[in-house]
């Protein structure tokens, strides 16, 4: 009778561990290195800076928004977002795109913009404006 509880308890513990380990893996991970983003082919959140020189194209008819992102190692990536341009896109210091890299383009399902703080000191030159 006792042995049954021990065996059952061990099975439960082992699979609970497995459950929690895999549960943490199901979250979408942040990735700041675009080389890794291009290699994995999985859904992830890529963070980068908008390449201003290449500007952006907005197609209102097809509701697509195309722009380029650059990461810290100067890797560039084309991003296609199905939707309209987010607010504050031009002044954003950082852009987080959620999506998947396919056929040389990053297909984003969500774009988050990180805006420069209003409360910075006077002498600090804000990088966004």
């Amino acid at each position: 009778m006792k042995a049954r509880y021990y065996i059952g308890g061990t099975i439960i513990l082992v699979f609970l561990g497995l459950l929690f380990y895999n549960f943490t893996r199901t979250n979408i991970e942040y990735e700041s290195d675009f080389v890794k983003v291009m290699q994995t082919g999985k859904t992830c959140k890529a963070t980068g800076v908008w390449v201003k020189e290449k500007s952006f194209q907005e197609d209102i008819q097809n509701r697509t928004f195309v722009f380029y992102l650059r990461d810290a190692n100067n890797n560039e990536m084309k991003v296609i977002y199905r939707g309209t341009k987010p607010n504050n896109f031009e002044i954003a210091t950082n852009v987080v795109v959620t999506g998947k890299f396919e056929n040389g383009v990053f297909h984003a399902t969500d774009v988050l913009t990180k805006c420069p703080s209003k409360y910075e000191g006077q002498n600090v030159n804000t990088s966004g404006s």
Partner: protein
Amino acid sequence: MKKIFYIFYKDFSSELRMRFALNALIMFVVVAVSTILFSLGSESVAPNVYAGMFWVVVFFSAMSGLSRVFVSEEERGTTLILSLIANPVTVFLGKFLFNLVLIFFINSVIALLYMFLFQEFLIQNWNSFLLAYVLGNFGISASSTIIAAIISKANVKGTLYPVLAFPVLLPLILMLIEITKSAMEGNPISDVEAELLVLISYDVVMITASILVFDIIWRD
């Protein structure tokens, strides 16, 4: 081993005679699916919304039908006789088997209705959807059987059941929605590998824990 099938058969034949759980389930599914159908109209909805609505209907139909296995024994006063005839593990496995058949049936009905009525509910990766479907049914019937055993002694059975079942079933439902969404988008099965492993471990944990705990609940 044979007794498990006897208990299953007893429930099955009494269910066929009365159709208490079955009627409640089918009525619920028809009402829920037609409400969704009428409210959607011809609008196109994202896959994750469809996946969510699909499993919401499955969850609540499980809530309305699966508690019958132990509640009916309690109402008819046959609990004592059943505990004299068979040992607790056998009783649990028999009831679990019955719930499994019931949820498989009702889930197939829901899936077929969705495929007929919603043109956009298109599964592109059948492998991952069917795996999620089978593993999800096992998980739902395991946890709903043990929760049905717990609440069958309580006075307010109807409301207690979803309240207790919701936190237990939440991780399962979340994973199922994620896999269904991925299957509708046609992503390869390797994309949802982690979710499938969560489902497998959830099922194993629920079934072993239920078998261990059922002893104590049943003798109470």
